[in-house]
């Protein structure tokens, strides 16, 4: 995947960190101190959808080729900049009864982006 730089236009991963103290959640979330949400943004021209490193998978590359053939190469062919790798967010927090809960929420942190 590609990390977004200033002025990036192509599909890339934008880092975005939510500080729990900043949003006033540090009293009920014990750990971690924040959430590295990140997200995918940018353009996915059809010719990029099949490129190694940007395509989500072999299957999506095949789909992109099919779309390219049917859409006649227009920019609105439907390829999207989407997460291709995600990992869980581990949280340690107080619930309503002041119990301490530890859980791993799957697929919360975007690690890489690519064109669908």
């Amino acid at each position: 995947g590609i990390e977004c730089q200033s002025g990036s236009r192509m599909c890339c991963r934008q880092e975005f960190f939510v500080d729990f103290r900043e949003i006033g959640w540090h009293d009920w979330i014990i750990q971690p101190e924040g959430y590295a949400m990140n997200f995918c943004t940018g353009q996915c021209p059809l010719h990029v959808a099949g490129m190694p490193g940007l395509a989500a998978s072999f299957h999506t590359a095949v789909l992109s080729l099919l779309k390219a053939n049917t859409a006649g190469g227009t920019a609105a062919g439907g390829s999207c900049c989407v997460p291709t790798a995600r990992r869980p967010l581990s949280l340690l927090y107080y619930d309503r009864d002041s119990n301490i809960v530890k859980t791993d929420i799957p697929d919360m942190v975007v690690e890489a982006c690519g064109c669908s």
Partner: protein
Amino acid sequence: TPRAARPCPACGGPALDLENHRELLLELAKRSILDKLHLRQRPTLSRPVPRAALRTALQRLPGPPQWLLGEADRGQEYEIISFADTGLSDINQTRLDFHFSERTAGGVEVRQASLVFFAQLPPNTTQTPTTVKVLVLGPRGTNLTLASQHLLKVRASGWHQLPLGPAAQAACSQGHLALELVAESQVAQSLLGGASRRPFVAAQVRARGKHRVRRR
């Protein structure tokens, strides 16, 4: 959200301007976390736990039992530490109440639960171990019903961990677990002493699947 004839905002457009969309992204992050935790709003802490008790409990929390489930069968798992509300006690008997959220009740399957408590033996105790009987009481409203009982030999002062059986796990799943500790000597009374030695239940639970079918 797809709108008529408009693609997803992540498709085709230039990179998002972070500064202009910061508030929106923060709201999305908050909503995402609350949704995944099945909460409508952030919890308001009604009974904050002393820092010392929290630290002690976390140090005593065992690692997740990865052997319990295969990778494919592992849904969203939780580990919960519930601190006891101590109720009626006398010299050798202590009532402990553990409350679990409505969300926990029915929404998750309790796979394992252990009682962790500190027992302080009287200074003049001989080498003979003290027996502590842990009674799992029936559902709320039928306080005198005995669901099951466990025996534990306490040989020295310190923290003790007692795995609880299916009756206690079922009580946790229903939102309320009531235990009664009956000791041969004055050991039970010392459970009340010290904020950092508050007894707790450590439970390993798993979210129930929406479309789970039970076969008989």
